[in-house]
């Protein structure tokens, strides 16, 4: 509902739906649980131009903004397609911002190579990745768990903290000395996550202002939010169809308030989350300083929306919803893992509070500061 998209955005969505429809991604998600290889979506993403969405036209990218990336990823989430875009898009956003080497960006834009983001900020509880400067290089040490899309990635963008506590970023080939990537088993088998160990890894420093190095991690959270909105919406659609078709005690079960109100609650949560995803998409281009708040808030509300919709979809379906063969179980697996990735939804909530309290603190120091929040 509440659509306010440009024609180009609408076209992007429809093209994504068409592209994804060529794969049976749900059956792929199920068979992957039994060890079968999932559908090879990376090539599809490359052909559709998604791999280069955030890379400039100077390097064969589409030169689009986060909003378009979020719209594509929402469609992927709807059918549980994982094209390894969450790591790649977050990493390429930082490379683009740093104006990194055009050859590298070109290879990433066309999908010839695949990138992932290694940022301990994605898991606030981990010890931060340590960074020190050595000539023109940054040297990184540390260990980060459950990094999205990192197994088999070709290029790593690493974010760490230097001795002064400032955030710095670097880029390095994934097979460079000192990098060990171990794949983790994932509850949602569409996912590719791994633990990264960095031992004196020398990387090319990226020229990004300190207050913008977290944009990659925040973008990854916004992408997770968009994906969750898509998945939650698919849950609502599954539930809606079943509630109309299934009869119990002489009536369609959707005529009972218990079911009907539950579905409306799904809709309410999805609409709230979607509003924040849209808002995050817009701030990326229009007001980057506000992006962190928007992205983390989107992450919180979207994770809660999917967290509600996925298990309730099982319950609406009664016993059949809890069977292996039913798609509801796949969305449930998606929900349970997704809310814990990139540091988890709780860390995103803490990040929202941190932005707001830091701003309040500044206001008490300089009472004349006008806050974006004073509106409303």
């Amino acid at each position, binding site marked *: 509902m509440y659509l306010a998209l440009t024609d180009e955005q609408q076209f992007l969505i429809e093209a994504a739906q068409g592209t994804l429809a060529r794969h049976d991604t749900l059956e792929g998600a199920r068979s992957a649980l039994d060890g079968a290889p999932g559908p090879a979506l990376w090539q599809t993403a490359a052909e559709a131009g998604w791999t280069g969405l955030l890379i400039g036209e100077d390097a064969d990218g589409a030169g689009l903004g986060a909003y378009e990336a979020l719209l594509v990823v929402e469609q992927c989430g709807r059918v549980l397609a994982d094209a390894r875009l969450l790591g790649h898009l977050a990493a390429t956003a930082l490379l683009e911002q740093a104006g990194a080497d055009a050859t590298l960006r070109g290879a990433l834009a066309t999908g010839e190579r695949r990138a992932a983001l290694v940022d301990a900020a994605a898991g606030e509880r981990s010890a931060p990745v340590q960074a020190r400067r050595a000539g023109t290089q940054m040297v990184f040490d540390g260990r980060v768990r459950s990094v999205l899309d990192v197994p088999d990635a070709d290029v790593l963008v690493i974010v760490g903290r230097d001795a002064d506590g400032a955030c710095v970023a670097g880029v390095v080939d994934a097979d460079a000395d000192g990098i060990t990537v171990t794949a983790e088993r994932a509850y949602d088998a569409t996912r590719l996550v791994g633990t990264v160990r960095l031992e004196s890894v020398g990387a090319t420093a990226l020229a990004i202002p300190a207050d913008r190095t977290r944009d990659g991690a925040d973008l990854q959270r916004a992408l997770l939010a968009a994906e969750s909105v898509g998945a939650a919406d698919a849950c609502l659609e599954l539930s809606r169809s079943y509630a109309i078709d299934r009869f119990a005690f002489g009536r369609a079960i959707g005529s009972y308030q218990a079911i009907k109100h539950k579905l409306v609650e799904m809709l309410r949560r999805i609409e*709230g989350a979607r*509003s924040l995803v849209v808002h995050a998409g817009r701030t990326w281009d229009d007001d980057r300083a506000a992006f962190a708040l928007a992205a983390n808030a989107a992450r919180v*509300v979207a994770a809660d929306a999917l967290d509600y919709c996925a298990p309730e979809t099982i319950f609406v379906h009664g016993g059949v919803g809890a069977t292996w063969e039913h798609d509801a179980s796949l969305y449930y697996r998606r929900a349970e893992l997704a809310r814990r990735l990139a540091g988890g939804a709780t860390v995103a909530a803490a990040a929202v509070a941190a932005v707001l309290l830091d701003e309040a603190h500044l206001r008490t120091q300089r009472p004349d500061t006008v806050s974006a929040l004073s509106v409303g």
Partner: protein
Amino acid sequence: MSSSGPENLDAFRAQLRDWLDANAEHAPRRQVLAPQDDAAVGRWRGWQARLADAGYAGITWPGAYGGSDGTPAQRVAVEQELTARGLSGVFDFIGIEMVGPTILVHGTEEQRDRYVHPLLRGDETWCQLLSEPGAGSDLAAVQSRARLQDDGSWVVNGQKVWTSFAQHAAFGILLARTDTEVAKHKGLSMFVVPMDAEGVTIRPLRQITGDAEFNEVFLDDVRLARDSIIGAPGEGWRVALTMLGFERVGVGSGLHATPLDRLVAAVHASEDRDDAGVRVRLGQVASELLALRHTSERVVEEIAEGHVPGPEAGLIKITSVTASLAACRLAVDVAGPEALVDDEWGHQVSALPGVRSAGGTEEILRNLIGERVLGLPPEPRVPTKAA
């Protein structure tokens, strides 16, 4: 003001800002709930007249009746600029959002001439006489009777509840039963009632806050003139649906929720500022309030582009109440129980539960959205009988 387009809107907004710079001193500050004292009400009505005279009330209404022939986008711009400055809009939102548009649609030319312009300026404010003790959300069950007299006038008897601002209103818009022989919703008609007519008694109904935001209104042999009916006899249900449709469009509630900056300031000022659990809770509540704000903005954009939002816009009310209550409760938790008796948070803690049922219970709203938006089948009908 009749042409639209972004350039025109920018010019409109610039002019509006100049006007506000010059006139804001007359505006009451925006408050969560309207104050009940007469001086404050008088000042607020004066501000409405000033807005109307400058063309900033009834923006989309026809110029012939005092409106500005403007666009929905301009209406939204006024709302945004007022909100940004923390200023109130019109006092009589029932008149402006619901009664005025309804009279414009269903009223006679004489009724439009008589009622619309004084309504717009706040010279005559309005209240709704719809709900009854036995018919809250279920308006078709209204029992108040209007009996046609030989001279074409009507005599009304009945009792209404949940009437906001009845004590200030010049007129009420009344739903009454004019025919008991037909199916429930077919026997209703809509009337204009002068609130000073003989037989009208207003009894304030105190809310949990202690304020009397609502009233009960008793109608004892109230005589109404022949031309006080709006629409034809028996068309009351259709007129009421039109009016409730306008209520839904009067979104706003999402923009009027608990201000996030005040919640953040409350946590910042407390001992719990660095408590990990409190910070996560703040982040969750703040995210909900932000979702609410941006959902409201999305709906406002829709309206600005000329679309009429679907019933799902009603979900904003649910989120508004739940998120605002969560915000108030967090603020009280960090400030300590004494904050329950202060004006900042305690008043809202008392007021919000009543807001949730205002304009129909949440259950009714969820039924409506489940059936109209999600296409779910209705409950089985229970045979209805006329009262």
